[in-house]
């Protein structure tokens, strides 16, 4: 649950979108269509039947031809938030949910149509189409019903996800996926999604403080491994984590996908705006 103060800070921000909105009702995104907004787009010669209110009289006086002023058509954009709802998200679920709420709030206040999909092993949970600031309360109600559980096969669930409309897509996941998230991103891009990746990781995952002989149990699938958590073991883990994060970053970079690593151990409302600003999501 985000504070009102934080939400009011979000009011001044807008989600960045490289491409043009296409289709849908009127909104605040520039579309490929010319239309009736106040933003100038181009000139063209008059064709009978055109709205004479758009004739540029000054240009006609100068060139002795009738020109018509064209304006941008502003349309709404579709924003989809894919929230990883696997068991591994349990520890950082609160942070992931806050991120989803923040992105959704930006989408709703930006006049976009929003859909939040919670990716789960036993079938995705999908929110209704939401639009307008007043839909934020419904969004929260929807997120309240989502509980992280089950094994997470991110690529598989993303590829099975239906009902995606061309637009922005925010993937919020810890990205624990054999083979990386490249395939999942490619699948989304293929379906017209302009992706951004937000990766929340808990403080334990970023800097585990373990000691002694431990039997680690995976919260997703119950798998166990025995670990002698000595200095070398922790060093190995840190090296593996660095490789893992670098791999995710490079995967996103190659696909021109904004990426943000979210430390669940820190205060979300303090970290969020600088983080997505730096990553180019707003």
């Amino acid at each position, binding site marked *: 649950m985000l504070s009102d103060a934080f939400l009011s800070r979000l009011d001044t921000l807008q989600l960045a979108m490289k491409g043009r909105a296409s289709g849908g009702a009127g909104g605040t995104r520039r579309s490929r269509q010319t239309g009736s907004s106040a933003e100038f787009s181009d000139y063209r010669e008059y064709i009978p039947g055109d709205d004479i209110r758009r004739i540029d009289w000054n240009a006609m006086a100068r060139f002795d031809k009738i020109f018509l002023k064209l304006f941008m058509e502003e349309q709404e954009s579709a924003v989809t938030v894919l929230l990883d709802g696997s068991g*591994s998200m349990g520890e950082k679920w609160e942070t992931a949910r806050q991120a989803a709420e923040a992105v959704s709030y930006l989408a709703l206040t930006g006049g976009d149509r929003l859909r939040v999909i919670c990716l789960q092993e036993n079938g995705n949970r999908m929110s209704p189409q939401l639009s307008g600031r007043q839909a934020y309360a419904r969004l929260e109600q929807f997120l309240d019903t989502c509980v992280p559980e089950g094994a997470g096969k991110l690529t598989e669930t993303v590829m099975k996800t239906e009902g995606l409309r061309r637009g922005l897509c925010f993937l919020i996941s810890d990205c624990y996926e054999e083979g990386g998230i490249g395939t999942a991103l490619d699948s989304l891009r293929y379906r017209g999604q302009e992706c951004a990746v937000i990766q929340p990781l808990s403080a334990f995952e970023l800097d585990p403080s373990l000691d002694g002989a431990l039997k*680690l149990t995976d919260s997703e699938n119950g798998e166990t491994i025995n670990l002698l958590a000595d200095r070398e073991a922790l060093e190995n*883990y840190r090296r593996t984590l660095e490789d893992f994060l670098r791999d995710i970053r490079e995967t996103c970079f190659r696909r021109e996908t904004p990426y943000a690593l979210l430390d669940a151990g820190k205060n979300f409302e303090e970290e969020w705006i600088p983080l997505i600003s730096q990553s180019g999501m707003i």
Partner: protein
Amino acid sequence: MLTFAAPQFAWFLLLPAGIVVLYLLRRKYLPKQVPSTFLWRTAIRDHAANKPLQRLRKNILLPVQFLAALVLALALMQPNLTGREASRTVMIFDLSASMQTVSAGKNRLDEAKDRAEELLQGLPPGEEVTILAAGAEVRQTLTGSTDREDIRQAIRNLVCGREGADLERAITLAEAIRREETDRGTRIVVFSDSYTPKAGIAGIHAGRGEENRGVYTLTAEEGSAYARICNFGGDCRVTVACEADGKLCEAKETEIPAGETAGVLFTIPENAVKVAVYIREADALAADNRAEAPVERSTVRTVALTGDNLFLESALRVREDLRIVRTSEELPAETQADLYIYGNSPLLFSRDPSKTVFTWGETEKEPAGSLTAEESPMTDGLTLRDVALRACKPLTGGKAAIRAGNDVLAAYTDSEAAIGFRLQDSNLPLKYDFPVLVQNILNMLLPRSAEEVPETEAPVSREESDVRTVASDTEGADSAAAGSRGQDLTGILMGVFLALLMIEFILAREPWSRRKGKGAAT
């Protein structure tokens, strides 16, 4: 047939079981739930990839350790592969004093003889038996006999000495015998209360640890005797008595802690010649409970010498127990000396010069002939070859020792000796006969104290009393080993053990590049 020379090490067979238990009880892993083991698996996989022996180590370490412990236990038991063909047996008997130790009414030597008899009964017909008796010296009392009765008789005739046993020498001799017989197996069996069996040489232990006290040392001087009593058993209080010349003069009680010694001082008569000290309480080894010693007297004798004769002084100094005092010819009796030597012509050696029996002429004359030695203690070893004389004063009195013609030039009694010429008138001091003559005279008149020592019974040697009498209870060490012969497997097993140790070392070793910090994966 497989036999074991040291079956007492069978306890070590529990070692492998202990290793298994340790494996079962090894480190417990505390459960901890983590969001995902995804990264940990990868980290561990990388770690394992750096340890190619890791998997092998995990799978093989326990069996290797198990095997190593098993092989070690078997090696300690000294297995032998035996055959039953007629061969040769060398029996070595420890005849040290400690074999007299009595346990359950029987001394250790008797027990060893019984065990030897048992062994004898189990020998195949035609087996040759050699018996070595290891006392202070090693004797071969029976050589290669197949006659059972001869063998039994030879064993029965063995008796203990009062000293130690040179087992090492006996074993060396037995091994030499074995080397001679390369075509037949030769078994060596040592019957002892202290021998520890080693590869190829079986040992049959006789006796068990018993309480024992012994007289460790005994010294006696004029007026006192000092005995040191060793306690080879538990804390005790003993009564130590002292006899001087066969008469009891003192008895004292003393407390001696376990394994310690205690000194006891006795007062004895000044004129006692021999003392004996004994412990009244009976114990396992009676032989070391009594010791005798002669009373030592002051050994330095004083010789009063008049005149100035370097040759004579040099000859006297050969006896290190003499103190030579120069004195005047007029006042010799004022010097308290054991022997007086004075006068140049004649030369007189006397214990009491006031009572001399010798007389001699007033004037010197030329010798009547060449010098000849009479058979006497004074001339023992003298040749008098090339001894020349310029002038002499013939002697009368005493027994003649050296003559020149009919003239007596040297004579002696029990307390005196005289030479009837001046040394400077003769070349005798330059001959090797001169020191011999002087020593003969000294031996007659001042015999060495050692020669007066009465015969005594010295304490049993310390090493016999202490270690052997209280030998640890290793009874029944290896009767099975006595039958062992043929191929000794101990060496092979030890080799296998070392090889397994090496394998375990290699498997257990960390990768060279990451010596510090043990690996994460298990």
